[in-house]
């Protein structure tokens, strides 16, 4: 009898554990990454400047019920390697939320620096930032978040499309 009670308690504990984990309201993270594939810029002295970077975009969220997603904070990380002489490329990072029609509903401009770890033998520099503005969206509305990083080089006529990482809020 004692043994059966123990088994029953064990099963109940497991059910509770699964319920707690899958129940609405628990915190989780969605991540999107993107790689630049080395953007090479022909520069005015006849040489080249190139940049290679990887970006990571996280959105931290909870789902208080089945129709709503509460976004509590987000992180953006860029690690880069540059090979350039006189004309260096520059990076521009934009993080924003968009509605299903592709119009921006919120640009995030207030960021605090966070510590990151990156491979110093592959990349020269790396930076991570966190924004803690809260946003709430209806899951069925098709909203999404996007991190876009563009590289430009003032001594070059060549321009590249930005690297874009998207997270859908559903």
């Amino acid at each position, binding site marked *: 009898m004692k043994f059966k009670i123990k088994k029953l308690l064990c099963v109940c504990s497991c059910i509770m554990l699964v319920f707690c984990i899958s129940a609405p309201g628990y915190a989780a993270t969605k991540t999107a*990454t993107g790689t*630049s594939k080395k953007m090479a810029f*022909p520069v005015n002295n006849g040489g080249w400047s190139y940049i290679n970077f990887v970006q990571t975009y996280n959105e931290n969220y909870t789902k208080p019920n089945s129709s709503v997603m509460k976004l509590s904070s987000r992180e953006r990380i860029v690690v880069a390697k540059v090979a350039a*002489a*006189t004309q*260096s490329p520059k990076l521009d990072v934009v993080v924003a939320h968009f509605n299903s029609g592709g119009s921006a509903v919120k640009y995030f401009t207030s960021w605090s620096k966070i510590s990151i770890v990156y491979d110093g033998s592959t990349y020269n*520099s790396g930076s991570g930032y966190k924004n803690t503005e809260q946003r709430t969206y209806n899951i069925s509305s098709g909203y999404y978040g996007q991190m876009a990083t563009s590289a430009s080089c003032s*001594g070059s*006529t060549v321009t590249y499309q*930005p690297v874009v990482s998207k997270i859908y809020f559903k």
Partner: protein
Amino acid sequence: MKKQISAIVIAGAACILGGLSVYSNQAADAALSGVGKTAEYSDLLAESYTDVNDFYHETLEPDGLSDDQVSALENLDTIYEVGDNIAISTQEVEQYTEFYINSGMTQEDAEAEARKDAEERAALYVEAIRNGYTVTDEEIYEWLDELKSVLEEDNNMDAYQAAMSGFDSEEAYWDYEYQIYTVDLPIQKYAQAKEQEFYQENPDAGESDIAYNSWYDAYQELKAELAAKQNFR
């Protein structure tokens, strides 16, 4: 019962993994524009400006040009201006001016930008050599191999083809690149060393913008300072 417990534990693990949604790479492939202007500029480079880098080696004096050397250089029609350690050719300034005009600038603005670029490149080269960042032929060829492999990636192929289009052959183009990197590779090595030094000396770099952009801004200042230090006249 054991099987039931195992099933529940597996289901629980699946929920945990499901909760930590990891989205795969959704980056758009980088596409480029501006290759038409690069091709036009390549024609100009191949036609008129393949000897520009010779002046760097011919006029550099790491310990400083003597008064006699300065006077002699100032009397040459091929010299645009002379600094404390190096001279800038008229041809180089014309080359950069053509670049900026080709990019849509007015003649006056193009000349001002061209002069700035030529002075900064010359000043950086002086500083690189003075700090021991010389290069061997082997290092240049090694770098050109690395550069070629980057340019042959799908992403860069159009820009590479455009940059090469004005030259008679691929070999002629890489011979030209060799000449450029006799000057640019020492500068590149110097810039990389200064970049690492910058991050070490400025642990707070990147407080408001990414650390690399802080270095970018610092490098613009460094170039201007070095050019001013050359006292070009």
